[in-house]
């Protein structure tokens, strides 16, 4: 993956050289399945999660599901 920094941030899949597209992706955490929009390579289906999401809402979800 490489990051092209311009206003309309686009992401390319390094392996397939295809532009990532927003698509419905199934996220599984423990027994929970959730469907969310994420950037995905249309060829190899590799998903990209940006830092803001990983450290933001995704982290919040993970913490909310944490056991004692």
């Amino acid at each position, binding site marked *: 993956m490489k990051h092209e920094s311009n206003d309309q941030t686009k992401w390319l899949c390094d392996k397939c050289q295809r532009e990532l597209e927003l698509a419905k992706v199934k996220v599984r955490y*423990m027994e929970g399945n959730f469907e969310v929009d994420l950037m995905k390579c249309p060829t190899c289906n590799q998903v990209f999660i940006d830092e803001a999401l990983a450290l933001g809402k995704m982290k919040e979800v993970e913490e*909310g*599901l944490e*056991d004692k």
Partner: protein
Amino acid sequence: MKQIIATTKSLCPVCLKKINAIIWSKNKETYMEKSCPEHGRFKALLWRGSMPMEKWVRNKIPATIEKPNTQVDKGCPYDCGLCADHRQHTCTALIEVTQRCNLSCSFCFADANGSSVPDLTIDTIASMYTSVMETSGNCNIQLSGGEPTLRDDLPQIIELGHQIGFSFIQINTNGIRLGEDEAFVKRLKAAGLNSVFLQFDGTNDGIFEKLRGKPLLATKIKALENCRKYNIGVVLVPTLVSEVNDDDLGNIINFGLDWVPTVKGVHIQPASYFGRIPNLPVEEKRLTLGDIMDRIEDQTAGRIRKKSFSPPGCENARCSFHGNYILKENNELISVNNPANCCGNEQAEEGANKTKAHVSRKWRSNELTTEKNCNISHENTEKDEWDEILERINRYSFSLSAMAFQDVWNLDLNRVKDCCIHVVNPKGQLIPFCMYNLTDKNGHSLYRKQ
């Protein structure tokens, strides 16, 4: 063939002297046997069920009590306070704010009644809070009794706890006043009450009549309605007694799920034989954690599976089990437990910290979530699927747990040393819950009423 699992120390049920005990298993049942030179042999059922007790483990590296309140002198369990030999910090500190009660239950660990014991003064409660803060820091507080809602100044007691620095305060109540006095519920909420531990033994009045002496279901439902109105999280707490309500577990859980998000979970307490009890234990009729796990799976038709339960990271593994779930929009219940005991020994202190945070997060109402949702609804464009997932997690989480208190018959002092539920006495000392309530065969206490 009997297989010896462990040796430990226990107490003689007659003289409360410390004696040796062995723990052995045979055919999915585990027993403790012990012998007092003066009073003879005793045998108690510890565990029964498809999950063997020896597999219910979660090893911990003991915590160190930095500021013990008492010296080690006679040895566990005679020096409670906490002493330096104790192996776990306080997760929940209980303060019995009154010994008065508006019920006269057949089972009552506190042996509360129309007692003439005066209520604790506000000054005494303040010094108890302060002592807990010094010894255990910002742990979770449970205000108990007797029936704490009989005190008109309960809101003031809650405010005081928050002022001293406790962020999670729960009341342990039969719910009668919460059902009958909405204005009082409003005052409790305004004072910062975070959670209600609601005695809830079953889904029909026959159960309440047997255990509590009167039909109470309608009152409990009214209490739930008032808690819903003022956004106070509720945990349903059945005292489980064999042949009284052990066949109603599935109904209680389904009832709780119907009341999500007001109801945050069900916490099951199998009856122990201390305090006021209707009879001495018949060992075959004891309900163990293993029994309860099996019954839950059976009575929920597999909606909740026993494989979703984990041993605790805070107290001794044999004291409890718990499972965490999320109720989805389609009423499907998904298990979200992390796999337990996968990682060798854990730090007991870390387990206590996680449990304090988890209980506080999961058993309180969701003001933050509600506020956030309001903001989101104003700025509709910013709400995405992650917000919906977060709302589900925050508002529709459901916990299911059970804690088996120890009595003088099945007492294992190794479990006592790992205890994290501590009763605060008026001197500000912290006594492990089971030790505070323990009574001998004739009803004499080890710690209570001292």
